[in-house]
């Protein structure tokens, strides 16, 4: 390479280096620094805030599909005090148990255990709802767990006694 060419290259290198200074300034604004950090944090804030809306919409849709259908479960005289009957509410897949308690009240709950979905039975002797899989006990008066692994109450089916018949009129997931 001739001396003249070398000098030419050197001068173009210098030009590039001068341009790099501009690059550094620009990069300073793009790479991680205080400004970029705040912008990323702001973006995260917006993303997380907007992520709540689909759940709100889905909740509204679920609320509209409430289980307010009125279904006849049994004749009022069909069950003696301390007896129970299985039925399904609101769909065939949602099995439930209707109990005529010793205080002569009708109560009903979906009978899938809130622990691992085993069927729950009414235990007349102890007046409790029992899940035999892992010995989960529920209070028959309110469906809340009283012993064993279940942490949540059984979904409560609202019952109404009218004209000698027991009707299921709705369902509450969280109650009392």
């Amino acid at each position, binding site marked *: 390479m001739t001396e003249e060419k070398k000098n030419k290259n050197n001068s173009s290198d210098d030009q590039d280096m001068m341009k790099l200074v501009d690059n550094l300034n620009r990069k300073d604004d793009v790479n991680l620094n205080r400004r970029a950090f705040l912008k990323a*944090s*702001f973006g995260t*804030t917006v993303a*997380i*805030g907007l992520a709540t809306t689909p759940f709100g919409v889905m*909740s509204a849709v679920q609320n509209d599909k409430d289980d307010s259908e009125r279904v006849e479960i049994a004749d009022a005289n069909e069950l003696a005090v301390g007896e129970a009957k299985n039925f399904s509410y609101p769909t065939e897949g949602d099995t439930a148990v209707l109990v005529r308690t010793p205080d002569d009240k009708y109560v009903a709950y979906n009978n899938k255990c809130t622990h691992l979905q085993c069927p729950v039975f009414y235990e007349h002797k102890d007046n409790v709802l029992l899940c035999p899989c892992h010995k989960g006990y529920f209070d028959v008066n309110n469906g809340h767990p009283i012993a064993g692994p279940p942490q949540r109450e059984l979904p409560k089916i609202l019952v109404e006694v009218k004209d000698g018949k027991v009707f299921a009129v709705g369902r509450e997931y*969280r109650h009392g």
Partner: protein
Amino acid sequence: MDKKRAAFLSIFVFLAVNVISLARVIEGYYGKEYSHVYPFMFAALISTALATVAFFIWKKEEYKN
């Protein structure tokens, strides 16, 4: 505390509010406690709107010169 610093710090406060709100909304939705979903969803949306205002205040002050 000057305006720019207040706007800067408030964005992190709104970020914390949104994180907590999202957690509560998800918990309410999957726990079928729909009445818990809406208040936290609105809190998150208001917080997001305020964060946007704070961001533009900060941006205006930051790039003034």
